[in-house]
């Protein structure tokens, strides 16, 4: 506050006059674009390759890395197994149920938002308690869960994620990586072929080819009419002399490619004397 | 709960304590009971002090107002009433502060359900609140509000 009345006003006038002659910091937008900061986080985009195919293969790694879970992934996974969602609570009832209740037993008012069948988690809880809820025992947990339930239901995966605190993406990735873990109940007979080096030397490859040709699916799949399901077995070295092939868990003695092919054909034809090769 | 007021007055006036600055006032719903949590600050101890008034019934939560010490607590108490339905006796302006005047549930309670909210969203038409002759329903406890709700149905 100056003692000369009006001096402050004159100062202000002088300042505005000086600024009238100054260079203006305006950025004329359409002509000149302001550089965007390298760390700028904008809208998420899915990239397409030059062939026009979507590059995203639903590996969930981005959703796993997002600290605030703002990334939503939905759709069918790469093996056309079933529908998965991973995203903000506002968009998917399933996700909201995830978000509102993850690992805390509070009720959330949309029971309708459960797109997968609930299961009786008693056995699973026992398994988890036995494994000390340790996400590092994920493979064992999943294996025992499949042994208990016959396959890995989505509800079981989510429950494991809830209980162990492992991200759903981890559980799901583990479950889809190993061939012997299956997400769908096994249809009909299960023909498992070991592919360890020993068995391969003894001709597991030929047997597998014959089986695949006969079942007209690749390993891990079920034959079209659902009679036979090809899977990978693990012999753990206890079949020193022959290829380790199991039919519904029963070890086949001295299998040959032709025999296994015929077996599969007969199984698919529908008249299969059980337990015989 | 009346001795909350005495505790606060002592904390505020005692020359040894002089907790003169009300840092925060908020309501809490623990799922089983209601709480009112005060945070104070004193220039003497130069530290926070948390006063928790526990064990308010969820049906009829009532707590004494501290507006006679801190007039600035008025809006905080209004907010606690708006969000939890805690009635502060002695607050002369205990209305809803965020929600519309005819809103009839208390959003931050644990038993608050979203569909419950949507079915009575504003703009729905004539609300029993406006038909109600007595304003007592509005400045009521959750029990009163529930009773008025059934009466209006």
């Amino acid at each position: 506050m100056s003692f000369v009345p009006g001096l402050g006003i004159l100062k202000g006038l002088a300042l505005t006059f000086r600024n009238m002659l100054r260079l203006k910091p305006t950025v004329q937008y359409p002509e000149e674009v302001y550089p965007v900061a390298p760390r700028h986080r904008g809208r998420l985009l899915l990239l397409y390759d030059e062939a026009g195919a979507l590059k995203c293969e639903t590996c969930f790694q981005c959703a796993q890395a997002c600290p605030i879970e703002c990334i939503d992934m939905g759709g069918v996974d790469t093996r056309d197994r079933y529908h998965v969602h991973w995203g903000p609570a506002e968009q998917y009832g399933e996700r909201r149920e995830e978000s509102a209740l993850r690992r805390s037993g509070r009720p959330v008012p949309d029971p309708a938002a459960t797109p997968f069948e609930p299961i009786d988690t008693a056995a699973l809880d026992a398994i988890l308690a036995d494994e000390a809820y340790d996400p590092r025992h994920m493979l064992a947990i999943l294996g025992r869960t499949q042994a208990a339930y016959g396959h890995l239901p989505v509800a079981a995966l989510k429950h494991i994620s809830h209980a162990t605190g492992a991200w759903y993406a981890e559980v799901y990735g583990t479950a889809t990586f190993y061939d012997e873990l299956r997400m769908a109940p096994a249809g009909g007979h299960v023909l498992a072929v070991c592919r360890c080096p020993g068995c391969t030397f003894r001709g597991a490859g030929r047997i597998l080819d014959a089986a695949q040709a006969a079942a007209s699916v690749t390993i891990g799949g079920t034959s079209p009419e659902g009679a036979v399901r090809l899977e990978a077995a693990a012999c753990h070295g206890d079949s020193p002399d022959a290829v380790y092939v199991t039919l519904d868990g029963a070890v086949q003695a001295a299998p040959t490619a032709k025999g296994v092919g015929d077996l599969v054909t007969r199984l698919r034809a529908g008249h299969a004397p059980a337990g015989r090769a | 709960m009346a001795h909350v007021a005495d505790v606060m007055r002592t904390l505020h006036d005692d020359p040894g304590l002089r907790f003169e600055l009300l840092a925060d006032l908020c309501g809490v719903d623990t799922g089983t009971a209601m709480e009112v949590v005060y945070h104070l600050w004193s220039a003497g101890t130069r530290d926070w002090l948390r006063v928790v008034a526990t064990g308010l019934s969820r049906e009829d939560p009532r707590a004494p107002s501290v507006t006679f010490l801190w007039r600035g607590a008025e809006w905080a108490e209004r907010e606690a009433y708006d969000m939890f339905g805690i009635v502060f006796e002695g607050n002369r302006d205990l209305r809803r502060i965020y929600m519309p005047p005819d809103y009839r549930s208390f959003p931050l309670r644990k038993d608050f359900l979203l569909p419950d909210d949507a079915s009575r969203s504003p703009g729905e038409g004539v609300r029993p609140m406006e038909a109600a002759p007595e304003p007592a329903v509005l400045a009521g406890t959750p029990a009163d509000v529930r009773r008025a709700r059934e009466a209006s149905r």
Partner: protein
Amino acid sequence: MTSPETKVRSLDDPSVFVDTPATIYDAIPPYPPRTEREAEFYTLREGEMLINIGPQHPSTHGVLRVVLKIDGERIVDLDPVLGYLHRGVEKICENSDWHMVISHCDPLEYIASMFSEYVPVLAAEKLLDVTVPRRAEYIRVLACELNRISSHALFMGWLALDLGGITPILYGFLERDEIVEMLAALTGQRLLFNYMRIGGVNGDLNHEFMSRLGDWMSHALRHIEDSMTLINSNEIFVGRTRGLGRIDRQTALRMCLSGPPLRATGIPYDVRRAHPYSVYPELEFEIPTREEGDSYARYLLHLDEIKQSIHIIDQVLHRLPDGPVMAKLPRLLRPRPGRAWAAIESPRGQYGVYAMSDGTDQPFRLRIHDPSFFNLQAVGLLTPGHLIADIMAIMASLDPIMGGVDK
């Protein structure tokens, strides 16, 4: 008032004004008064009239509605009506992860969102007993002080704008734009930074930020003081703000004021010193206070705080230690069951969060204490007796951010 046979509809029903007589434009609500205070306010004495400031008004910062009861030009009483911007952030936070709380609290104080995202992080760290790396602490202080300066620069422009001067806000925006650009280089965003993380910060300092900061520090104080000579000594400005909305210490304490409005009355209450929360104990700076508690004192106080903040930034740049910027934490945070109260000094005052954890990875209750909420309350005490033109000056000098007031 509506006649009894008029069918009273919902307050939010837009069609309510169409077929009703023009007298329904009166601000008196169409429902019976709920409290004696409301009844007393909405009964008009001789020569009084009600007038609505807002919800859409040039000088209510945000969507605020103030019902004024005026007698001619003089304000008899007023009744602020909040809630136009209410999002229920506390409820959303209860239903979301500790990490998500950051981004939900970010837009609360959108002028200085670095603070509103710092507090929940601080509370979560108290519950988790994390030790944040010192470099991260220093970077937090740096970012917060920069954001404080940008917020204060905007405040001065706003005050002048509400007093009718159209130029200072653009000068304030110049400073704010430089700071915001350098913060964008640091955090990636210009307005809602989303930079704080539980246990550290999102990223380390980069070269662009440091170079921008160096350029700015070289001329910051000079520029700000230059642009503020426009109103600092302007007789009209001083004559309008001096002695306006004066409040004394006891009343300020009873009104639960904090920040500049409280310090303008002479009470040196600044959380950075009253209850130090970061590396502030290691930095030296004063808490500027003023004795008169009027709008002009609040305005000058902001200028002093800008100088102190520049001083702090200078020290931080000289003492910045090396090391990581993020503590080693699991991706999934399950704090111990318990309660924590964390408060920091935001540009508008003490910004607090009261967090309760039940051992899950979501806050059981997250109470957000926003200083704007409590400072805005003082308008009802300061304004009566002044003229209509003064409510703008008082409100602008209290500087509420409606995003934080309405949560």
